[in-house]
């Protein structure tokens, strides 16, 4: 397809936001988004893993197609992602132990984040070339971080509001996500 890098980036960031339009990465979105100071680093870490996963998936795909081993694609992708997350964990532990502790259990959980595997699968399905894949991963990760930060900001303020206890927690987060998703629909067609 002849999509420009700008179109792909803006699309993944806004109009087809990974969380609010494509339903990827919801577990951390609902789980980590109640505090702004953990939401942003989580988004950045996920974006980094998405980028690494995208690069590796691109290379792996070329290799697998050359050897007609397409049926191993899924296993290969998920193993690469698990390894990338291990790598990020080790790097963070060494260079920023405070951040490592703050993210806690959610760091290894990036492996099961649908958004990361989603990047690899979608770029393969849409047959993006190298540049398009990189831009797609960056846009997708950026969109994920954006949604996470927006959600965290709203939820922090809502903690001071008088919400009926029946609705508190995940039900409220989902309603908020619905409203955010509705507003993001306004970006449709942005970037051509």
């Amino acid at each position, binding site marked *: 397809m002849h999509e420009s890098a700008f179109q792909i980036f803006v699309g993944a960031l806004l109009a087809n936001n990974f969380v609010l339009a494509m339903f990827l990465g*919801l577990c951390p979105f609902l789980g980590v988004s109640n505090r702004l100071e953990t939401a942003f680093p989580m988004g950045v870490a996920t974006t980094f893993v998405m980028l690494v996963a995208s690069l590796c998936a691109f290379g792996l795909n070329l290799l697998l197609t050359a050897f007609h081993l397409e*049926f191993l694609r899924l296993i290969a992708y998920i193993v690469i992602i698990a390894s990338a997350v291990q790598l990020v964990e080790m790097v963070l532990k060494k260079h920023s132990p405070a951040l490592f502790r703050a993210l806690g259990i959610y760091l290894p959980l990036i492996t099961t984040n649908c958004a990361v*595997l989603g990047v690899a699968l979608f770029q393969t399905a849409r047959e993006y070339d190298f540049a398009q894949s990189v831009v797609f991963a960056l846009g997708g990760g950026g969109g994920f971080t954006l949604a996470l930060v927006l959600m965290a900001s709203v939820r922090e303020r809502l903690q001071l509001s008088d919400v009926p206890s029946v609705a508190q927690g995940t039900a409220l987060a989902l309603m908020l996500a*619905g409203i955010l998703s509705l507003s993001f*629909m306004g970006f449709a067609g942005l970037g051509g």
Partner: protein
Amino acid sequence: MSAVAAPRTWDEFLEGLWKQNPVFVMVLGMCPTLAVTVSAVNAVSMGLATAFVLVASCGLVSAMRRVVPKEVRIATYIVIIATFVTAVDYAIQAISLALYDALGAFIQLIVVNCIILGRAEAHASKSPPVAAMVNAAGMGAGFTLGLVLLGAVREILGSGALFGIALFGANFQPWVVMLLPPGGFFVLGTWLLAFAAWARRRERREGASHA
């Protein structure tokens, strides 16, 4: 021995189905839950596919539980789950290309469904195969139930049909947003609200009967 085991296995099944329902109670596996539940048929198919992967993976993980070293267990579980997801992917393509197109990438995304890895780690790696598979079947049934409840509401409101059968006349104005991402969030949020209210009322009634 069997007189005690039989009720216990049924309990295990029920636990996954209702008390620890993955969609409404544990709130896990959200991504496919919201993405494919635009119709009841899609919901059922996705639920069954996930249930199959759950049962098969937990069975294999449990069978190998004494052999897999602790250090590499998560990687091993992931590879096992990915294997069965690949198998299901081909199976669905062989059954119906239309269904495959409708479920899209979310079939392959079953591999990162937190429910499966969570069950494998928490339960299957510590139990004999039969118990692990029964528990997995319960979780799978609970997941399917959750998906169908969500899919049915979205289909009724958004297309005026259920399982493809039109319910209302031609004058029905479909509530299109229910088929779009915001609708998915709203409907699931409403279901969680309903469940929370119902659980609260049950607690109050039990508390009143003890008082």
